[in-house]
């Protein structure tokens, strides 16, 4: 499912052949996931967006000098994380002077390998959902991706709310199995 080889090739193309096309492709693959990742660390979307854009800009600027040690994914996720840590550290300093209450800095413990690009995630989840029986899939997608409550779905599908609850339960049991490989890696903050 992971496309590290493709990403590394795209990067070489961008770096060695100055291909803006390849760079754009990488940007479209990684920008969304890195924004979400950075946002989880710094806490707001605006800052996250700026950080990731800055990282991409610097990668383009220094593309000739960059040597990937493991993979492009690893490289860029690390770059974003470092940038986020910097921002947080600055904030902590400012906070300390402003309010004298040291805010704790918590960085996400996700490793770069757990950061899926938008297309990878679409495929992972899409493939798992394909395994669901049609009715159940419909109910689950309405609930998860359209944000509808069980009652709303029941009305739409002309079924009882109890049936919908059963559908969702069924869907989740199947998904637990289908997504087994990806689940333990996810980290949740509650």
């Amino acid at each position, binding site marked *: 499912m992971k496309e590290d080889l493709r990403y590394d090739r795209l990067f070489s193309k961008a770096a060695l052949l100055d291909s803006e096309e390849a760079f754009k492709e990488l940007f479209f693959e990684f*920008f969304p996931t890195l*924004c979400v990742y950075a946002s989880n660390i710094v806490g707001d979307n605006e800052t996250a967006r700026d950080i990731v854009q800055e990282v991409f800009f610097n990668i383009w600027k220094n593309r000739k000098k960059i040597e990937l040690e493991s993979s492009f994914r690893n490289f860029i996720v690390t770059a974003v994380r470092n940038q986020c840590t910097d921002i947080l550290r600055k904030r902590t300093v400012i906070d300390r002077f402003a309010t004298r209450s040291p805010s704790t800095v918590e960085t996400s413990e996700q490793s770069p390998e757990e950061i899926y690009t938008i297309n990878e995630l679409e495929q992972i989840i899409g493939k798992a959902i394909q395994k669901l029986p049609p009715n159940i899939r419909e109910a689950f997608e309405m*609930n*998860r991706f359209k944000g509808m409550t069980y009652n709303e779905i029941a009305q739409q599908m002309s079924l009882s709310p109890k049936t919908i609850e059963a559908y*969702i339960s069924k869907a989740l049991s199947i998904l637990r199995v289908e997504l087994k490989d990806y689940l333990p890696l996810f980290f949740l903050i509650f």
Partner: protein
Amino acid sequence: MEYNESSIFSYLQDNLSADEKRDFELQLQRSPELRKKFDEIARIYTLSENLIRQREVNTQAAWDQLYRRIKRSKTMQSIWNFTRTAAAILLPLFLIYQYFLLPEINRNKIQQTITITSAPGTVTKTVLPDGSEVWLNAQSTLTYPVHFTQKTRTVKLNGEAYFKVTSDKEHRFEVMTPHQIIVSAYGTEFNVNAYTSANRYEVTLAKGHVEVSSDVSKSQETLISGEKAIIEAVSGNMQVASADTYAETAWKDGKMVFRREKFETITEKLSRKFGVNIQMEDEKLREYIFTATFTDESLEEILYLLTRSTPISYTISNPQQLNDSTYTKRTIKITTK
């Protein structure tokens, strides 16, 4: 109450009532099985949540912004490269101009000089390119450049001149006289008496301080105001003595002030001022000492006054026409009575 997957999912989506929620959280703490199930479903929730959030990101807008930035920095880069290349070419040219051509141009410039000479009996005043004022006594010559371009402001003097030097700490003012006597200062007033014919020169300081040095004797003296340096023309030996500044510099105001001066010195100054030859028949006369101040008296009046106080007489012979149609100076012969 038994919690199945769908109610866990409802909890995660915050679709439970406050009571149900509280009850669920209580169960979650009590039942390890529920906890395990909850964790797995929570991960499905997070995974799909991640996708939903990624879908909301406006990647196209961000790319457009980034792309503009890349283009802009590329333009800046090419401007910078151009500037660097231009500098690489221009800098050596500039250095060549600054250190090879410019000194050459300046050397040529200094060769363009102005020479002024004061005729016998006149005092000429001139202003140098730097604004310094110079009074040039009779039968003196001053040479100076049209522009002061060198590190020092150098002028050449033969005769007597009074300098009022404009202050310029960066550029020394130097007066070169015959027999390699150099007077240097930054901004002062001083008198230099250096007639080639004389056997000793005098530098009298009116204000500030000057340095007097002789290349012949390799000696150097610094004068403070009210002092004068007396230099033997040939040997370059130097002596510092206190000076009567008024008497030494009175000439520039058209006066002749003598204070206990030898007759020899007086006749020398008279001959210069009036453009005449004065001959003394008796060697002893040279040693006579006079004190006198003349302002606008004529030569005849002065001579008359001298005969009144000393046992001398004089005769004036008129100019003679020479073979080449020029005339000799008037000659005055002084004899003892």
